Every structure is written in C-alpha cells, then in structure tokens.
C-alpha cells in the first residue's frame, strides 16, 4: 500500500482488545481512515478506523496484535484504504495486503482505487447472458455459468474444490470466441500447499501470465483477510472495466474471511446473531460479491467464483446460507459422492444457477437445453428418492417404475456427472450424454421436455433418422 509518510502520529493508545486498538486525544480523524501502527521494535502494520468521535478512535488492525503494548505509535494517514492499479499488476503474486511476494518491486501507480469500491448503479448494469462452457457436464448442462455471474462452490474439507475451480479456470471458454479469461486469485487462510497447487496449475497452463494472485495463507494474520477479497475485487474491476478484460475471480476460503469478521465483531462486543457472526454479515458479504457483473457500454466483465467450506457439511451454517442469498446460485460438492469416486462430486439437486436461463437456448447452446436440464433434475430427484426407499424395502420392494428411476440415478452419476479432471466436454457432448440417459426412461415420463424436442433429439427418433 502506498500511503505516504504524512499524517499525525499518536502514542495515546489506551486499550488493545483482540484485533482492536482504542486511541485517545486524537484530532481530525476520519471514519474508515487508514492508520499505520509501529511497535517499539519497528514492526509495522496497518489498520483502519471503525468508530471515531471527537477525542477517541477505535481501530481494527490488519495483523497480529499479540505482543503489542500500549507504547505503539499510531499514524493516521488521512486516506481511506487505496491500492495502486495498473496493467503491471498482471502476472504478479502479492500478500493478502498487496505486499510483493515474487521478489519484484512494490506496484506503483498514480491511479489509486479505494478497496471498498463503489456500488454498480442497478440502472447501469447489463444482464449477464454469455454462456461460459466449462467443459464440466454437471455445470454446463444443469447449472450453466454466464459471464458476469457470481457462482460459489460450497464444499467441505478434503473435497476436490480446488481441482474443480482449477479445471473451470483452465477450460472456461465462450463457444465460438477465443477470448481467454484473466484470473484474479484471492486466498484467505488456506494452506500453503493449496496456494502452491493453484500457482503450479496457472504456470502449467500459462494462465499465470494473465493472472494476479493475492495470498493470505493459514499462517498469515487473520485480520488481514478483511482486506484481501476487497483488494482482489478492486483489481478485477480495474481489469474488467478499465482494461476491457474478462476476469474470473476465484476466492477461497470465504469461511475464513467471515471468521476474521466475526473476531472483530466479538472484540467490539457487538450483539451476535447466529453462531456468533455479526448481524451485518449478509451486507458485508454483499459488498464483496456484488462487485461482480457487467456494465452497459463496457466490454469487460467480472465473473466471481468464491469457494467456501461448510463447517460440518451444514448448508444452513451462516456463511453458506448468507452467501446463497447473495450469489446467483451455488455449486455444491458432497462427500458422499466423492466417497463413491464421482468427480466432480457435485450434488446437482441443491445446486443452482439463476442466470442459466439467460445464457442458454437456441442462440447460444441448443434449444432443448433448458427442458433437458429440467427433466434431468426431476428424474434424478425421483431416482434419489427411490434410493432412499431401497434402504428400507430393498430393491424387490420397488415398483417397476421406481426401479427405472433408481437405475437412471446411478447411470446419471456415473456417466453425466462423473468425468475426468482433464476431460473437457463440449455442450453438445453434454446434451447428447443427457439424451442417452433420458432414453432409459419411458417416453411418456419425459414430461418436462417439449414433445417437439423429444421428436428431434430423443435417440430413438434420431436413430430412425
């Protein structure tokens, strides 16, 4: 961060409570202003003002406060948190607060952007509608992603969400266009080996030359995570709306971000809501997620894929719950599928892409796409219901019809959802696999598909010519 050496220095800290400092006898301090804190041993970290009145300020520290004492000097910089933006950020690797990690110099630019960004005026938003082919059937066929969408992956520890995200980053294309995505990658509290995985992955594919990595790892200061996703989105917005690039932002793990927010809230003694998270968690997450999108008259776009772990696999946990209320759908990875060897272990039933309807159809994918997807959902739901029955009454207890559903569900997981880490299916391939599966069902049960499309795409009629 390039906050000049100006500003008034105070040594009047009266209390340190967790990540929060209380400073007295101050003058002319602004809300949300950035502060620089220096310990007597010369260690320097930044923070920002959370609450200010005429003579005292409360400051959140984006670093470790343990070991600090009241003798720290606090410099109020007179600026809100800004970062320099330029095309020189591309290809670089930074810490969670934008310190270089790649041995290259600090980024410089006269163009400084507030990390909190602005709110895109709803009237200026363009409706995202360009279909992105990820090459993964479970996504393209049933939860299609479009440019400018925010679509998170809900996962659990030990599941291959990183592989899935990397595969999406690797394979994402707009059919018929050769434009590639620029990648902004933000890590919050993930293990070093996970960050290394992405770095190697981006190097292997050459994506590194059009990516920006912002890394706050597990052993980095937790409170720094408050700014990491904001820095990432500020860069993404710049690349998209100033440099006309199509950006894919991957953020992982948003649950660690929310925990950092919670620890500040607890230190401020705010009234907690569920599981100790503050009541404003929804609005706070929205200020990060809603920065994705498209703007009328601008070429670029920000597509956002946050990854978060559901503690205990619980989708009603506040972080996945509130995320789902903000994002335009969710992709859900499930341990049970992973144990059965399905990759990607995506449970399509609770997964959803709300913007799919605008991205698919005759003009972009195929006219039967929407119906096929709906039919797969219904049939798979019936199949999983039958699977539940089997546990109680055994296969013999099932009716003929239920047995067909059951068989369908198994095949659907094996042939449609399941695919290779390097298998890149076109949308036509995906839909054809879908039809081969639907052909297992009696034709009169394909109630969600228009009759005309059955006649046109059902293998039975296609074989007949």
């Amino acid at each position, binding site marked *: 961060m390039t906050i000049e050496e100006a500003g008034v220095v105070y040594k009047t800290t009266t209390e340190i409570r967790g990540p929060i400092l209380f400073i007295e006898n101050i003058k002319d301090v602004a809300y949300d202003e950035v502060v620089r804190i220096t310990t007597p041993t010369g260690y320097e970290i930044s923070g920002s003002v959370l609450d200010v009145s005429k003579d005292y300020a409360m400051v959140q520290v984006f670093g470790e406060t343990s070991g600090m004492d009241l003798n720290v000097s606090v410099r109020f910089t007179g600026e809100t948190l800004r970062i320099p933006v330029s095309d020189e950020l591309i290809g670089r690797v930074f810490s969670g607060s934008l310190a270089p990690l790649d041995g290259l110099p600090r980024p410089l630019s006269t163009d400084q952007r507030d990390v909190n960004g602005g709110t895109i*005026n709803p009237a*200026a938003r363009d409706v995202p509608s360009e279909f992105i082919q990820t090459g993964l059937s479970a996504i393209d066929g049933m939860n299609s992603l479009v440019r400018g969408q925010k679509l998170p992956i809900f996962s659990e520890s030990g599941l291959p969400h990183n592989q899935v995200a990397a595969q999406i980053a690797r394979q994402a294309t707009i059919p018929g266009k050769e434009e590639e995505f620029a990648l902004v990658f933000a890590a919050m509290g993930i293990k070093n080996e996970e960050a290394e995985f992405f770095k190697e992955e981006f190097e292997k594919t050459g994506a590194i030359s059009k990516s920006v990595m912002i890394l706050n790892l597990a052993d980095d200061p937790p409170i720094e995570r408050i700014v990491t996703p904001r820095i990432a989105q500020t860069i993404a917005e710049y690349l998209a709306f100033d440099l006309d690039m199509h950006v894919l932002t991957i953020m992982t793990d948003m649950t660690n971000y929310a925990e950092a927010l919670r620890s500040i809230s607890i230190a401020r003694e705010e009234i907690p809501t569920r599981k100790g998270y503050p009541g404003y968690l929804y609005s706070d997450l929205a200020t990060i997620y809603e920065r994705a999108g498209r703007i009328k008259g601008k070429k670029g776009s920000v597509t956002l894929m946050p990854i978060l772990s559901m503690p205990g696999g619980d989708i009603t946990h506040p972080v996945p719950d509130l995320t789902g209320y903000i994002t335009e759908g969710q992709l859900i990875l499930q341990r049970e599928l992973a144990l059965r060897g399905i990759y990607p272990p995506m449970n399509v039933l609770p997964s959803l892409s709300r913007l799919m309807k605008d991205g698919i159809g005759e003009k972009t994918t195929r006219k039967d796409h929407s119906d096929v997807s709906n039919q797969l959902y219904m049939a798979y739901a019936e199949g999983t219901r039958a699977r539940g029955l089997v546990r109680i009454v055994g296969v013999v207890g099932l009716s003929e019809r239920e047995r067909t559903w059951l068989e369908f569900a198994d095949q659907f997981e094996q042939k449609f959802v399941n695919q290779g880490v390097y298998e890149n299916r076109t949308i036509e391939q995906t839909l054809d696999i879908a039809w081969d599966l639907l052909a297992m069902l009696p034709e009169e049960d394909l109630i969600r598909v228009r009759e005309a499309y059955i006649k046109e795409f059902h293998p039975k009629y296609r074989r007949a010519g």
Partner: protein
Amino acid sequence: MSLKGSIDRINGSLVVAKFEAEPKIGDLVEIGSLRLMGEIVRLSEDKAYIQCYEATSSLKPGEPVLDSGKPLVAELGPGVMGTIVDGIERSESKLWELTGPFVSRGTNIVPLDRTKKWAFEPKVMVGGKVRGGDIIGVVQETESFQHRVLVPPELEGTITSIEKGDFTVEDVVGTVETRTGSIGLRMMQTWPVRRPRPVKERLPLMMPLMTGQRVIDTFFPVAKGGAACIPGGFGTGKTVMLQQVSKWADADIIILIGCGERGNEMADVVAHFPEISDPRSGRLLIERTIIVANVSNMPVSAREASIYMGITLGEYYRDMGYDVAVMADSTSRWAEALRDMSGRLEEIPAESGYPAYLADRIAEIYERAGRVVTLGSDQRIGSLTLLGAVSPPGGDFSEPVTTHTLRFVGTFWALDSELAFRRHFPAINWLRSFTRYMTVASKWWSKYERNWEQIRAKALELLEEAAEIEETARIIGEKAMPDEQRLILLLAELLREGFLVQSAFHEVDRYCEAEKQAALLKVIIDFYNLAEPIIRQGIPIEKIRELGIVSELMRLKERKGLQPIDAARIEMRKQISQLAETYEVKVR
C-alpha cells in the same frame, strides 16, 4: 429554519451530532462537507442520532450537519412511472448519467424532473368546490397510463382558476380559495413516507388478485387489498414469483421494491419488462411499473427507507382509484437494516438481535395494505395489495421475521427447498400454505365453474391424502400398497405435474387464464372420478397408468386455450370405457 450542528461521532451508518437547538425525530439532514443524506432516528440528552443513507467513509467529527426541518418525503406526481429509483426516490438512470456507472455519494438530485413539461387536462371548472383527493385534472404519464392529479389531502375550497396546457410539476395549474387563503395547486405534492396516506373509509375485500399462476389463484389466492407473506430459503423462487405476479397480475400499477437484494435482478426487470405486454390491456408492462432498487451493497439505512418509499408511492396511485400491487423483496433485509441500526444505537435486543419493536414495525407496514374509498367526493375505490418475501436464515420459518409477518397477512405461500431441488416451481408447499381469502375467491370463481369450491376442495383433499399415503409407502414400498391408494398417488402426480408445476419461462404456460385453470383442474378431478370406480372393481393400477391420456393430462397446461382440454376429456372417457370393457366392469 434549518438548524446547524456538527458531527460528534461516526460509527458505520450511524452519525451522532450536536445541534444548536433541539431538532425533531425524523428530520432529514445533510451531513458533512460531502452533504450526505441522513435522517434523525433518536434524540437523547443533547445528541441527535442520525442514520446516514450513504457510506460514511472519510467523514470527520466536527464536520457540519444541517437539519432541513422536514422529514423524508416522497415526491408524488408525473415522472416516476416506468422508472427505476433508489430507496430515497432518486432516479437511478439520472444518477448514472450524472456520475457514471458507480453510485457516487452526495449527489443530491430531486426525484421529479423540474423542467419537463406535461400536458395537463383540467377536470374541474372555476367556481367548483373541491376537497382533498378530488381529481383536478389528468396527465398522460406514459403512453397508456393516465395520471390523475389530486387535491392534496388536507385542502378544501373553491376553484378560482384552472389551466390547460403544458406545465412543469412545480407550475401552478390552478388555485383554490380556502378558508385560510388562496392556495396554488401543482401537479407535484409530497408526503412523508413513514406516515400512511389518509383514506375516507376502509372496505371489506371483494376480489382476488388474479395472477395467472395456478397454485396461487386456485389454491392460495390473495385478495385485492390483502397481504401475503412469501418465506423461503435461498433459491426457492421468491423473486421469480414476485416477478411473475408483477408481470401477470390484474393490477393497474405494480411497485417492485428490491430491498437489499441483487443488482442483476433489478437489471433483469429493467431489461425485460419493456419487452412484455399485459395480456389483458396489451400495454407494455414497464408502463405500469415503478422499480425501487436499493440493492444489497448499498447502505442499509436507505434500504430501511426503501420499503416506506415504495408503499407511499403505491398509496398515491391507490388514491387515484387504481388497484396497486406492491412487492417487497425482501422484507428480511429491511428487518436486518432495522436490527443493524438498533445495534448501533445500543438498544436492548429481543429475539435474534432484532429490536423489541420489530413486530410493531411489521404490523405498521402490512396495515398499509387495503381496499379503500379514497378521499375526494366521487367515492373512488382503490386498493393496495402487499406481497412481502421473507428470507429466513437457514430456511427455518420459526425465526422472528417470518413468525411476526404471519400474524398480519392473509395469505402464506410457504416455499419449500425440497420442491425447488426437483425443479417443482413455483415451489409453494400445498400442505403448509394457507389463505384467509377463500370466501372472496370462491364467489369470484363460481362464475367460471359452478362447482369450483368442491373441485378445489377435492383436489386439496387428494393431495393431503397422497402425502399420508406416501409416508406409509416410504416404509413398505408403493408396490405393497392397495391400488385405490396408488390411484391417489397417481392423481397427486397428475395434480403436481399437470397443474401445480408452472414454469415462468414457458412461452405458453407462464400465464394461465382463469377459465383454463378451472377447466384443467376439473378434467384432472374428473379423471379420478372415472378411474376410482373401476379400480375398486379390480382393474390394476398399472393399466390405468399405461393409458395414453395420463401423460396428455400432464401436458394440457402447455397447450394453448381450452379446446385441447375438451378433446382430452372425450379421449379420457373413451380410454377408460375401453379399459373397463376389456375387464368387463362398469364405468360411472
């Protein structure tokens, strides 16, 4: 008249200020050198607590605060219809023009355009007596929408002049001699958003709001002037349902309040409404719609105000004698804004951190729905129907916003994740939902179908029975169940697939007219009435299921008009008779 003060403290959206004299609660203030807008929400000792409608970054203690002495008002008059405004009624298209695609702070534009001229057509004559609510003239606000210019509520007197021609909203288009002097009438008036607009009389509800959505109109209707609550976890279809109602409901005016939800959903409405026309009037939907968009990453305090803004706009059009439907998506975000402010004010929290007055505030909001005789001498009738989405944490309906809202509404559409997972949309759970407007609806429906009430009751009864049978089937398997019960399961499937499921994106089925709803339901119940006796006489359920008519019954909804339904009825009798013949049993 405007009171000066200075900032004492800033804590997020809360700004504490000291004034030279005591200001009033509810006063609008300008904060700091950026002139941010805010509202005084509490006074305590010598301090005023202000909720700021805009982000407070970089404000400093000591900066000036200016009290306007006036509360937050809605500007009412021609120019809002068909536009998108924020929670404090600023045109978002205009803000975009002025400040670019990102919302900037301190851009204080007035809601109604002061320069645009409107063709004012007088409806009163000099010498005529008028009082609050009377129509003094009309303005063609959009191609198809006629704006009625009303005498402000508290005025009464004799018209001493009246104009005809092109005027701005601030121009005097007439004068009225009142007991206290002569007053100029303008096309624009203002009204404090937190205060309900007065009416002459509240009326009993008489008509259902027809939405073209089968599960709503047939099973859980809402009355014009009534209120409905739509709770559901994320992705269960609240927004799509409110959009469907906005598109197809037989209301004159639609106010869509995006309260702390997604920017893209607002953009979707802005992009698509101008392409669709109302199936009854042929008017473009956008011409009867106002969008109040305060999205999730805008400051929460303006989000709190947005609901009141939307309802006040709704009341104004109601007062012209129109049927207005106001959709609030989502009231949970409004309640969270309330909670946020309450927390910053260090009030004692009640359930889940919400302030103790949450229930009162919810009640006040839903109280503003109703069917009324408006002010004015012509006994005009208008209505305001209020539909509120609720986003319960974890999809659990036992939380405060859902439970309190339930007490004040007449219709409850319980959205169900399980249904949404299998793409059964609208995901309204027919066992958990209810309506208190059945008497109103039955009377209305009887004109389409004499036995409507019985048919509907039978359908619900079968669905309920099917739910119980399924419980047992889950333990012993469907195969082991008696055929009579399996027929009920089949019928429930027909009702689900052939009636309840209705895709918002199907070119025919997205809107289903009342006649077709009644005919569809009847033919499905008739099928049961035909099949049930022959099943009792021993024909196996598999044989019934194999009939070609079964899948036809599920597809009738996507065929245009009533003719296919009549054809299906004939075909149904034929197939069942044939089946009965083969087994030599009697048909009814």
